[in-house]
């Protein structure tokens, strides 16, 4: 029997983690993740979970102890944002290279410098090559659902990769929403017991994790890891199907909003997608065939599926809540462009950078974008392929 509650994004994810009841959790505070781990810590102090908590002295040690605990043989979590994610960067590669299914909610926050504690995607985008699976969440409900599914995806015996669940800092983590939670038993039945692969704690079978590998073998290990990445999409869909049966909510690799017969479209991640959908509706009322694509599985990126979803549109704008410096386009733009490249006929593609450092994304920004797309679809000329929207010029 589902429970309807009014809670924040952080509370929702903390609750999901409580229901999953992992063996070990490493925690280090950073805004805006802090109250998620605080809440989880109170579950520990009240005996509501069996989790052993390691209150580490830095995020680097948080991820390091997660690696140790996961290799030890059990279910492990941590959570972070921004600078914390940046600090644990080298260990993220180690976690995925060692094939350890650690789950980590990332409450997306801008990277320094300048110091900013508000929501944007630069943190998780900076980690997109680390080999972690990335699931992005539009709202607290999705963050809750994604967190629970993350365990089944990462721990799948064909996969065994760490998973990051992303949600917008402050916008989602700190705002109260009406969400539907599953019962505790439903979640524990869904995630099942943790199955070990090669646990260190099995002392009857001593193994060595983390050898030095020379040029004669390193590439084979990377190729093997690349192969695993190709299997993730199917597992994500299978898990989503199973999850639908217990929750009634549908999930895929992405969400297609009124995209079927769309001529113009927006590709956008997380909470801003929610804002944009209302504007898409407004345009539809006016008879304009607008649509929206919201990625959910961002890494490994399902290029073929994205390409198929967008190929028939006339003009698409990819809105990035992070920029990739160096004369480049935003990260999501680059992936979308790559997914469309194989087709002879493909939409005109433009890129807008928005919402950095917690800058508000308003309906008027979506209107601006859609109006521009209407013009491009009509005339076919583009003024600027990349622009910052919502900034004081």
């Amino acid at each position, binding site marked *: 029997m589902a429970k309807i509650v009014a809670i924040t994004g952080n509370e929702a994810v903390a609750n999901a983690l409580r229901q999953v009841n992992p063996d070990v959790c490493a925690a280090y505070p950073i805004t805006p993740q802090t109250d998620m781990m605080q809440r989880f810590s109170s579950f520990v102090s009240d005996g509501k979970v069996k989790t052993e908590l390691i209150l580490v002295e830095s995020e680097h040690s948080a991820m390091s102890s997660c690696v140790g605990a996961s290799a030890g043989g059990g279910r492990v979590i941590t959570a972070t944002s921004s600078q914390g994610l940046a600090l644990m960067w080298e260990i993220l590669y180690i976690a995925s*290279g*060692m*094939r*350890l299914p650690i789950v980590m909610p990332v409450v997306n926050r801008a990277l320094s410098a300048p110091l900013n504690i508000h929501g944007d995607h630069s943190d998780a985008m900076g980690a997109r090559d680390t080999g972690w699976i990335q699931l992005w969440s539009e709202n607290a409900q999705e963050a809750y659902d994604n967190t629970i599914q993350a365990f089944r995806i990462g721990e799948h015996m064909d996969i*065994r990769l760490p998973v990051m669940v992303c949600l917008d800092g402050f916008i989602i983590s700190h705002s109260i929403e009406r969400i539907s939670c599953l019962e505790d038993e439903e979640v524990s039945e869904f995630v099942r017991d943790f199955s070990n*692969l*090669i646990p260190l704690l099995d002392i009857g*079978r*001593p*193994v*060595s*994790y*983390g*050898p030095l*590998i020379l040029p*004669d*073998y390193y*590439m*084979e*290990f990377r*190729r*093997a890891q690349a*192969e695993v990445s190709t299997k993730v999409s199917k597992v994500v869909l299978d898990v989503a199907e199973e999850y639908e049966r217990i929750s009634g909510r549908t999930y895929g690799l992405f969400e297609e909003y009124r995209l079927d017969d769309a001529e113009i479209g927006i590709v956008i991640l997380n909470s801003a997608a929610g804002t944009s959908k209302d504007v898409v509706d407004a345009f539809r009322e006016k008879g304009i065939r607008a649509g929206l694509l919201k990625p959910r599985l961002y890494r490994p990126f399902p290029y073929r599926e994205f390409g198929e979803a967008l190929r028939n549109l006339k003009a698409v704008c990819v809105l990035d809540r992070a920029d990739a410096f160096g004369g480049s386009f935003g990260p999501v733009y680059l992936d979308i462009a790559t997914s469309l490249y194989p087709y002879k006929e493909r939409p005109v593609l433009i890129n807008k950078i928005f919402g950095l450092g917690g800058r508000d994304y308003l309906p008027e920004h979506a209107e601006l974008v859609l109006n521009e797309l209407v013009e491009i679809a009509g005339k076919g000329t583009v003024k600027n392929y990349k622009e910052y929207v919502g900034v004081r010029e």
Partner: protein
Amino acid sequence: MKLRNWKEVTPGAVITEAGSSVKFKTGSWRSFKPIWKEENCIQCLFCWIYCPDMAVKVGDGKREEFDYDYCKGCGICALECPGKKGNKAIIMVEEGK
């Protein structure tokens, strides 16, 4: 030795065979070789405990022969050997002589 392809490597590069280093014979590194002079040996076992390469074989608490598969010829055993009445139980000779 044939190298494995990408399908044959272990997930996460984990090595599942404990102590597999024994397959790599470091004895070929030597330029000097220790010789055990049993008549001068007081069975103190210092050579056994001090050897960095576990190259002194022991059986039932008694020192036996060197394990030349692994001995790198460092000479620690010879230097530390107390010997009997001033005569060492281990001497280093040039390898190959």
